[in-house]
């Protein structure tokens, strides 16, 4: 019977903690990533997750011809540098921020609409024995409004 009382309480904490972590990541995305879009209009989509050192995430999106885009990828300060690269559907690397001192943004436009893949990787502090750092990484897209 006691167990039956405990389960709903724990379920509440599970739900509350999970929602709270997501909310923190959203707050981080809004505060730190959104401003990086600068003069580009945020499209309204939201992509953020907690990543650990060395971990990768991928994003797939279609980008349209004659639109000017900016992608902004920002990680929390406690994380090492965030590396990202952009690949076409044939897996050719079109851009990597590793060559640009781990820049947080990349501006681009397309002659023809394409589906592209973004690979985001949290690099490593290379400190064996330490607990790997983890934190929120946010990805946002903006485009130029055409009058």
């Amino acid at each position, binding site marked *: 019977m*006691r*167990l039956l009382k*405990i389960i709903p309480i*724990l379920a509440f*904490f*599970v*739900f509350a*903690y*999970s*929602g*709270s*972590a*997501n*909310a923190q*990541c*959203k707050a981080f995305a809004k505060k730190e990533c959104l401003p990086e879009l600068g003069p580009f*209009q*945020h*499209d*309204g*989509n*939201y*992509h*953020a*997750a*907690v*990543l*650990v050192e060395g971990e990768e*995430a*991928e*994003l*797939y*999106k*279609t980008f*349209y*011809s004659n*639109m*000017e885009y900016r992608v902004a990828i920002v990680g929390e300060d406690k994380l090492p540098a965030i590396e990202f690269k952009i690949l*076409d*559907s*044939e*897996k*050719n690397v*079109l*851009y990597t921020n590793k060559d640009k001192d781990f820049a947080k943004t*990349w*501006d*681009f*436009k*397309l*002659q*023809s*609409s*394409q*589906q592209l893949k973004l690979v985001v990787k949290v690099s490593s502090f290379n400190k064996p024995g330490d607990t790997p750092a*983890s934190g929120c990484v946010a990805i946002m*897209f903006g*485009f130029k*409004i*055409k009058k």
Partner: protein
Amino acid sequence: MNRKYRISSGVLVVFILIISLLSGCKGGKKPAEENVTVTVAPNAEVLQDIKQAEKIFNALPSPLESAMLIKSAGARFDEHLLNPVSNQNNYVTSKAMALNLGIYTCDLSFASLYEQTQLLIDYMNAAKKMADGLGILKAIQQEDIDKLEANINNTEVIMDVVSQTFMNSNSELEDMGRTAVASTVLVGGWIEGLYISTQLVDMNDFNGNKLVGRIIDQKLSIDILLNLLKGSKGDPSVDELIVQVSKLKAVFDKFKITSGPVRPEYDKTSNTTVLKSEVKTDMTPEIFKELSSVVAEIRNSFIM
């Protein structure tokens, strides 16, 4: 026996707390199901990649981007193509409210880009009613509407409010673990954008029509949209959507898009990379008419 019971309860408490800490990290094994949004993967290799990767974000064009694509193709504004705000009281089920949250957000974005100020407020109120009905009260708040009214001639502020409310709706649903509802909102917005575009095409001006080009591009999204919905398979309202979207996919499958290699060229003056490539398609007016008809049928079933 009693002692054993106490120990197992304690173990259970610790176990559930650990699970709760891990689940807060949102980087679970099935992130594709957690995201509202979906991607575009036209070939089998890319689809295979998606299945193998652990942390995936899939991104369909947002309602604001869809509206921008229509406008940038030189299309005119036609209020009669939007879902009338007078329909808002008809939507009482969770599915209907989710679909029409997506639809009204797309209509709102369309009205914003064409500076239809009064419509903009009306559609924001309609979207708020849908969001409130879904229990995501923080997604669109009265202060957002007040901000719109106070900045009715300031396009920049309007766009910011529109994109922010969409982001809030998405993330609120994700936070609540309501993946099926979040996917349904996305389907509503995407179908509405496709419906408006197809209705605006003048068939006497089919060849070389920029808007037709934008509609062809949506073929790139259909497979992943289906995959997103399949993540919530078993939910009766999502199962119905899968049937409808599959019907649409069958029409998209009737034509091809062939792309040449992508060549990045950096433009130093604008600090922008231009991705150059050529694409070809064999879309015909007949397939287009069929596509328009299926899209209209699906969209009209959403707004009934």
